[in-house]
């Protein structure tokens, strides 16, 4: 039995309609998992679903800022595809806004998706009735901006930093159930979200960001592979940690 395989596991992925979340869905299905996809946009969910390996996959179209709907998403997922072995919270919003342009409503919109939606999923899917305890693993996609700073990233950094530390307390709360909890902090990887970011920058600023990554800009597969590792039994002694995948960005 390959310790790195996800064969027989059921993984729920938020933000699965694009970017890192979509690649996680594709890679998990290629590693043998049954995948439940959650995202807002039905058409893009269908597109992701068409790229998956195998056929037992299932999509739920849900706007995650509607936090009250999350228990029903977990319930219907378990009813349809069985108890959950793994979770990836890849849903997230990003933005570059200096503090003068930020306000409480904007901060809250970052926190609702990046942090609270992930925590609400954790609350429900760690219940014995929804989760295969003794094998389960939760992975939160944070960011190097969760531990480092950058002008214009106050709201984003605050939300990702919250996630990195919430993971540590969750790891301790869920250890008794043998549920592992970890975060992954990617540097800049090419996704539709970062293309938007690059589109807003001049050529010099863009090159400056690329130069900050000694191994260059990452790909979504680089991040998805790390997720598979943390979801797999090969990582069964890893919990409460934050895995930085940034091509050397934070080593400087």
């Amino acid at each position, binding site marked *: 039995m390959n310790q790195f395989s996800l064969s027989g596991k059921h993984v729920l992925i938020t933000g699965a309609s694009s970017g890192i979340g979509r690649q996680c869905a594709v890679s998990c299905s290629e590693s043998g998992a049954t995948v439940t996809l959650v995202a807002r946009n039905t058409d893009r969910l269908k597109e992701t679903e068409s790229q998956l390996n195998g056929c037992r996959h299932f999509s739920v179209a849900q706007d995650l800022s509607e936090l009250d709907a999350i228990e029903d998403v977990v319930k219907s997922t378990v009813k349809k595809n069985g108890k959950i072995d793994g979770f990836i919270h890849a849903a997230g919003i990003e933005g570059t806004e200096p503090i003068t342009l930020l306000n409480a409503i904007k901060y809250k919109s970052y926190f609702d998706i990046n942090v609270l939606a992930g925590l609400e999923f954790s609350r429900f899917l760690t*219940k*014995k*009735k929804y989760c295969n305890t003794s094998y389960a693993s939760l992975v939160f996609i944070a960011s190097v901006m969760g531990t480092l700073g950058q002008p214009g990233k106050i709201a984003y950094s605050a939300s990702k930093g919250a996630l990195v530390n919430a993971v540590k307390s969750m790891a301790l*709360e869920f250890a*008794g159930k043998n549920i592992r909890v970890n975060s992954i902090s990617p540097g800049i990887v090419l996704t539709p979200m970062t293309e938007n970011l690059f589109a807003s920058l001049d050529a010099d600023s863009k090159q400056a960001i690329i130069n900050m990554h000694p191994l260059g800009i990452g790909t979504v597969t680089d991040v998805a592979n790390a997720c598979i590792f943390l979801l797999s039994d090969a990582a069964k002694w890893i919990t409460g940690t934050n895995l930085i995948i940034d091509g050397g960005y934070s080593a400087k």
Partner: protein
Amino acid sequence: MMTKKEFIDLFVEELEIENTVVKPETQLNELEAWDSMGHMIVIGLVSENFDLKITASDLKALQSVDDLINKIGAEKFESE
């Protein structure tokens, strides 16, 4: 206000007790879920539902589910 039965149902739900039928005379120490996480959950439940602060050492002194109900105060429950 809730009845004692409703409280026990809530206790079972929140502690995720699956293999034991919990009754007033059930001994707390016989429940697998009655550990430090279980205590934390019950302290929260009691605080939310009865506006009452109990401590982990209060809980450790209790023997049975009925003791817990009496600690909260039997008069705070609706009659069945």
